[in-house]
C-alpha cells in the first residue's frame, strides 16, 4: 500500500447538514479561510439523513475518505437527528473493519453555523489523515 504518495489528490466527500455544518462551511468561505481543495460537500438536511449505505458505497466506489458533519449534540435542528447519526456511525465504524475498509476513512464530527474556523481545521486535518492513509483501493488492514 502506497503511503502519502507525492501528488496524491485524495477524493474526499463531506456530508454536511443544512443548518449547522453547511452553514459553518459557508462561514468559512465568507471569512476566506483557506483550506485544501480535496473535499466536496454534499448538502443534506440533517446528518441523520446520511445512510450508512451511502458511506459504504462511496468508500467501496473509490472515495478515499468520508466526513459526516452535523450540528453539535443538543443543537440539532430536528431535535435528535445528530444523536441518531452519532449512534449509526459509531456502529458503522466498527463494521468498516469487517468490510476491509480502514475505519479512519470515516470521520464524524459536529460543526455549528458559527464555527467557520472549526470547519477549516477539521477539513484540513482530515485531508492530511487521508493523505497519510494513501489512496483507497480495495481491502486494507
Amino acid at each position, binding site marked *: 500500500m502506497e503511503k502519502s504518495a507525492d501528488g496524491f489528490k485524495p*477524493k474526499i*466527500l463531506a456530508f454536511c447538514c*443544512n*443548518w*449547522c455544518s*453547511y*452553514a*459553518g*462551511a*459557508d*462561514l*468559512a*468561505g*465568507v*471569512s*476566506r*479561510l*483557506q*483550506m485544501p*481543495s480535496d473535499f*466536496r*460537500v*454534499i*448538502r*443534506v*438536511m*440533517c446528518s*441523520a*439523513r*446520511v*445512510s*450508512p*449505505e*451511502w458511506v459504504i*458505497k*462511496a468508500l467501496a*466506489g*473509490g*472515495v478515499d475518505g468520508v466526513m459526516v458533519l452535523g*450540528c*453539535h449534540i443538543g*443543537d440539532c*435542528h*430536528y*431535535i*435528535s*437527528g445528530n444523536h*441518531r447519526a452519532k449512534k*449509526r456511525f459509531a456502529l458503522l465504524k466498527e463494521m468498516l473493519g469487517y468490510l476491509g475498509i480502514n475505519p479512519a476513512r470515516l470521520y464524524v464530527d459536529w460543526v*455549528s*453555523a*458559527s464555527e*467557520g474556523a472549526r470547519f*477549516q481545521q477539521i477539513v484540513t486535518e482530515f485531508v492530511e489523515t487521508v493523505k497519510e492513509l494513501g489512496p483507497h483501493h480495495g481491502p486494507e488492514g
Partner: protein
Amino acid sequence: MEKAHISRSQKLAGDRQIRRQTAGFGNPARANCDLPRIGVFVCHCGNNIGGVVRVPEVVEYARTLPDVAYAEDNMYSCSEEGLSSIKESIVRHKLNRVIVASCTPRTHEPLFKRACEEAGLNKYLFEFVNIREHCSWIHMHAPDEATEKAKALVRMGVAKARYLEPQEEFQSDVYPAALVIGGGVAGMTAALNLANQGFVVHLVEREAELGGLLRGVNKVFPTYEDAGEFLAPLIQQVENHPRITTYLRSEVESVEGFIGHFQVRVTNGHREAEFEVGTVIVATGAQEFKPYGYYGYPMLPNVVTPLELEEMLKKGFEFPRNVVMINCVGARIAERPYCGRFCCTAALKNAVLIKERDPRAKVYILQRDVMAYGEHIERHYRRAMELGVRFIRYSLDRPPEVVGVRQAREVKVFHQLIGKELTLPADLVVLVTPLVPQPDSEKLSRMLKVPRGSEGFFLEAHLKLRPIEFATDGIYLCGSARYPSNIIESVSQAYAASAKAATPMRQGFVQVEAITAFSDEHLCTGCGTCVLVCPFSAIELRVGENGQKSWVNATQCKGCGSCVAACPNGAMQQRGFTDRQVLSMVEALVSS
C-alpha cells in the same frame, strides 16, 4: 384542509411508486418521462468566483456532461440581467432542469427557484452548486485546483439534476406571536411595532430594567435630548401594552422548532415560562469594551470609558479644565479590526457639551481618523472645531502615553502632522472604546443555530440583500447585536426586522419546502422502524389492502430524513434527497 393535504401527499407518493427504482450505481434511469435537458449557469460573481475559478473553462466542461443541453456564464447570475438570461434560456432551449453554480443555497436558492417558476418550470427542478463559499473563497491561491473542483461540483450537480422531479409544496401555519430577545431601544421598538399590528409579543430582557445601553447615556446625539426623557415613554408604552409580556431579569433557555412554531423556554433563575411563537427577533445588543491594561485603566481613577463619562455627566459632576479623549482604543487593531462606527460621534457630542458649558475648558481629541460622515456628524465636527476642540492625529506606531502615578496628569502624544511630541495637561482622560459582542452571544448563536462573524457579532443572511434576517427562516436581527449601531440605525433596523417578522404572521402560513419523506408501499414491510425514529411523530402505520404500511403525514414531516436512513428496506425516501439522487452525486465525484 387536512384532508386535502393527505390526498395530495398520497397522490405524490403514488406517482413515486411507479417511478421508483432501486438506488445504486446502476445505469441512470430517467427520472421523468421527459429526457432531461439540463441548463448550467456558471456565475463569475464579479471577481469573487471569476477571479479564482476559470469560469469559461467550467462552462465548456459542463457542455460535455450528459444531458446538458445548454451552458453559459453570467457576470452576476442573481442580477436582473442574469435572471432574465436564465428564464429566456429555459424557454429557448426547452430546459427542464436548471443548475446555477454560484454561491450558497442558504441565501440565493429562493431567488433562482423563483426565476425557474417564472419561466414555467417547477422550482424543484432546480439544483444549486456552491462554487463560491465552498470553492473560490476557500481556495483563493489555487486557481487550478479551484477550477478542477468547480468542474467536479458541477458534474455532481448535473448528476443529481438528472433525477430531480417536480414537487408540490404544502402550507404550514404560523403562530401569530413573536419572541424578542433584548429590551434595548432596538428590541423595544421591534416589540412595539409588532404589538401595535396586533401580534402577541414576548420580550425577554436580562437586566432588571428595560432600556439597554441607553440607560447609561446622558444626552442623545444629535438632538441633545436627555436619554432618560427619550427612553421613559418608550419603556412606558412597552410596559403598558396589553399584547406585550415582558420578562425581566430573564434569559432565554431554549428555542426549538421552525418558523411558525418555535417552542421557547424562558427562565429568571426561579421560575420558568414556556410559550410558543411564530417568529424570533434577536436584539441582544452589545457592550462597551472595557480597556483593561490600556493607558492605566482602571488603575488611574481619572482615566474613564465613554459610558463612565456619560455616567459622570448624568450625575452633573463639575467639569475639569483639561479633558483628553483618546479615540480608537481597542479598535482598528489586529485583535479587533473593526471600526466602532459611532465612538467618534459620541466623543464629538461630549466634546461639544463640555465646551459649550465651559468655553475655557481645553478639550483634545486624539484620533487616528475621524468618522464624521453624513450631515449631522459632519456639522458637529465643524461645531467642535469652531468651539476650539483640538484634534490631534496619532499613529499606532507611536501611541499616546498617559503620565501620572496615582492619577493621570498629562498625556504625551506624537503629533503626526507637525512631527513632534506634545505634552497635554489632563485632568480627565477618556478612552473612547468600541462596542464588543455580548459575551454569551455564542450560546445564543448555538441555541438558534444562527452564525456569528469573526468579530463575534451576529451575521445576517446577506450583507446587502438580506441585512436584517438570518438565513434560517423566521429569525430576524436588529440593533448592535449585528454591529455597533446608533439609535437612528437601531430604530430603523427594528422597524425593518419587525416588518419582516410580521409578514409570515400576517399571512398566517408559510410554504413548506417539499423535502418531506414518503414511503413506497411496495417495498415497505410495515416494521415500524421509521415510526420509532421520527422526532416529529409524523409517521404512522396504517393497515390497508396490502397489510400494515408506513404512512407519512407530510404536514408534520420536517424533512430531516432520519427515517429514510433507518428504513431497512429502502422503502422510505426523501424528496430532493433520494438515495438515487445522492448516490449519483457520489458516483460523479468518483468518476473524473
